[in-house]
Each structure stands twice: as structure tokens, then as C-alpha cells.
């Protein structure tokens, strides 16, 4: 068995693709002790993230077991999670330091 995406911490609500994955791909995942399979709603490139379950607008995106940003819209399970639906709470290249 070869994993095509990794969940870095059992608390995470996103997984990261370690191969280029097509829409509809069935991806096997391991989070802590748990193994499960998800079906992707969108193509996900290597290094990109997708959601493991529903994430409300304004809720935390968790990776490495830590908050990496906040959802700017409601995110469905197995959806691409990136700059189009997540914002940093620390600093962002398109904002000046004073604004963040």
C-alpha cells in the first residue's frame, strides 16, 4: 500500500496530497490509529490540501495539530483548501504588517 495523501496530526481537519490526484480519486488516509478512505471533490496537486470533513466559515484550519488559518467560507468535505477559502491570522503577503 502507498499513501497518496498524509494527515500530519490526528487533530488535523485537512490532509496534504503527496501525489497529483484527480477529481473523484479514492484516497486512503491514516490519521493517528485510524485508517479511512475519502473521495475527492476536486483535483488536488502534490503539496496541496483538502478537507477531511465540513468546516464552517470562520472556523480554524488545523494542520500539524495547530491553527494555520481561518476558513473564509464554508468548506465541504474533500474540497480543495487553499488561499481561495482560507486566510492567515498572522500575516499575509497581500496585507501590510499594520493590517494583520
Amino acid at each position: 500500500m502507498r499513501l497518496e495523501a498524509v494527515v500530519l496530526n490526528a487533530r488535523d481537519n485537512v490532509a496534504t496530497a503527496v501525489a497529483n490526484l484527480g477529481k473523484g480519486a479514492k484516497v486512503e488516509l491514516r490519521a493517528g490509529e485510524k485508517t479511512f478512505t475519502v473521495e475527492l471533490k476536486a483535483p488536488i496537486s502534490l503539496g496541496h490540501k483538502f478537507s477531511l470533513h465540513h468546516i464552517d466559515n470562520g472556523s480554524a484550519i488545523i494542520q500539524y495539530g495547530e491553527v494555520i488559518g481561518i476558513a473564509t467560507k464554508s468548506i465541504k468535505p474533500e474540497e480543495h483548501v487553499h488561499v481561495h477559502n482560507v486566510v492567515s491570522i498572522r500575516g499575509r503577503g497581500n496585507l501590510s504588517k499594520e493590517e494583520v
Partner: protein
Amino acid sequence: MSFLAYPRPDGSFGVRNYVGIIPTVACAGDVAHWISNQIRSSVAFLHQQGCCQTKSDLELVTRTLISLGRNPNLASVLLVSLGCESISVDQVAEGISQSGKPVEKVVIQKIGGVNPALAEGSRLARQLVVEASALRRSKVEESELRIGIKCGASDTTSGLASNPAIGGAVDLLIEKGGGAVFGETTESIGAEHILAQRAVSPEVGRRILEIVDRMEKRAMAMGTDMRGGQPTKGNIAGGLTTIEEKSLGAIAKGGTKPIQAVYEYGESPQGKGLFIMDSPGREPEALTALAAAGAQVILFSTGLGAPQGFPFVPVIKITANPITYQHLPDHIDLCIDITSGAGHSLRKASQTIYEEVLKTASGKKTMAETTGYFTATDIYTTGPVI
């Protein structure tokens, strides 16, 4: 588990048994280098500092040279001084000899020039090597280990696999009572609040935020905004969404244990557990910080394949990029794969790294030790050269 190491007079344990040849100033570097070429089992630490610098940088260089000399991997030290430099060779010698190890010196201008200094330095180094060679390794508990942690020439696989796997190995060592130190202050920008939450006290947490802020201000004073534009366009194309995510990928190599203390560059951390040493990310200065912090072994995560080691500390290069491993076999000691096989592969990778640390500590050579790729070293400074 235990490993084999050389007992030192100050109670520490060396995993190597070199005679360190340390110039007190850049102008004494060639003689130090030649002595180390001449006398086997001696090794030089070369740098560009030691004179015509601000007072605070001279203090920083002095304490770094002392801390390097005290690293347990050195059985003894020969200092090479030019004579007219700002750094006091006697102060450095005194600082190192407080650890109980033999320290000798040769002063180029006093002894009559480069060739007499090479002859006398080689004679002294030879004596020290013969004395050191009589020492034997003995069995030591893993709690006597302090490892340094670093990443460089990173790629997507660093934050996803090799850094978290190294972090797991660091956690294992700290659970066994050992110690670890990491620096690269610049790398924690954006995730410094998370590091600060892991501090053992509010004071240590405040220090973490302070060193990040200070590093940013230094860069800002030179017109460089390190937070702006992060993650970069290339990072975003590669899948990194926020600066928190990018920095978490970098600091994952430090594991998850509480942070005991924050040290200034070149200081000697005391005690066990996880420490931070304020240092930049660039290899020549960052590896020196870890060696000065008393690390006997360094774990170095690399995606693209950095080549270097350090003169007297084995640097274990770890990648999770199989292409790099196949393409650059003499840069990489260990390739880990967290995507294959059943079970908990990240945990397995951490265990593999941990075992490699103990093997290396007991004497197994790293690639950089076999290639001898470690002369591009330096000491970090913050002020101008005068």
C-alpha cells in the same frame, strides 16, 4: 538504549575525539587549516571574525569560540592567534580550560611568523592527538546526548515528512532525558506564537517573541521585510496557504516538547530538554550555533540535498525526497518514506532516525565526515565590520 562515547572532565561525553584547531581571528585561519591538514585526528574550525568589530560582536565571537572549544566532541584544543587581533586568546583559552580539557596556544607574530607557527602548532597538535588517542569509548545512557536540529535546501517534502519525522526523534530523545537545541529564528516567523505557547514559563515565551521581533527589526533596518510576501508566489503554487503553515513545517523538526529556555548565539545551554538558540538560518552560522550549544550530533533535514557537515560534529542529513537521495548519495545519510507500508509510518521514520543518531554517536561516520565537506563555517555577527 545506550551509546558509546568518550568521557570528558566536565562530566559530558564526546561522540568524536578530535583535537580542535581554532583560530581566534580570520588572519590566523590559514595556519590553523594547515596544522589540521598536517596532523591527523585534528580538525580546524575556520571563521572570518575576531577583529575590527563592534564591542558586542567581539563579545559574541569570544563566547562562541569558548563554547565551541568546550563542545564534548573535542578532547583538547589548540588556539591559533595572530597576536594583534581584538579577541584575547588568553580569555578564550581560560574559558575553554574551565571545562578541564587541555588547551594550548600558538601566537604567529610572537613565534616568528607563519612557518615557525606552523611548526610549533603542529608539534603541539601532535602531542594533543597522541594524548587523546589513549582515551576509550564507554557505554553511556542516551540521556547524555544533546542533538542540534537544522533544515536547509528545503522542498515540499521537508515540511510534510522529514521535519515532522525528525521532530518525533527529538521527542523520543527528550522523553529519555536527553536534550535538543534548535535555532533558525527567521524560520519561526508566523508561528512564533505557537512556539511561545510551548514555553515552560511566560518569561521564556516572551523571550521567544522577543528574538523573532529583534531578527525582523534587524532585517527591516536594512530594508527587508521578512514577513511581507510570505508565503511566496512559488510557495502558494506549491500548496502552502499561510505563513503559519510554512513556519509550522519548518519548526516541526523541533518536535512537540516544552521549550525550557532561549539562549543568545554562542552561549552554552545548561540542563536537559528542548532549547532555542537565537541564530540565523544560513548553514555556516547556524551549524556553528548548534555546535557551540554543545550538540554532539546534528540532524539536518534537506529536500534538495545540502552537502555540508561541521568540522567536529557529525551532521546526519535526512531527506524524504527519493529523487534527491538517488541523485545525491554522498550528500544524504538517511532517506525516509512516510507514504509506504502499513502502520504508523511517521512514527517508524522517527524511530529509524533516533536509532541512526545512536549509531552515529557511537562512531558510525556521516557522509559529510567521509567527504570532509566542512570548511565553509563562520560565526554570526550583527554589527558592521570596522
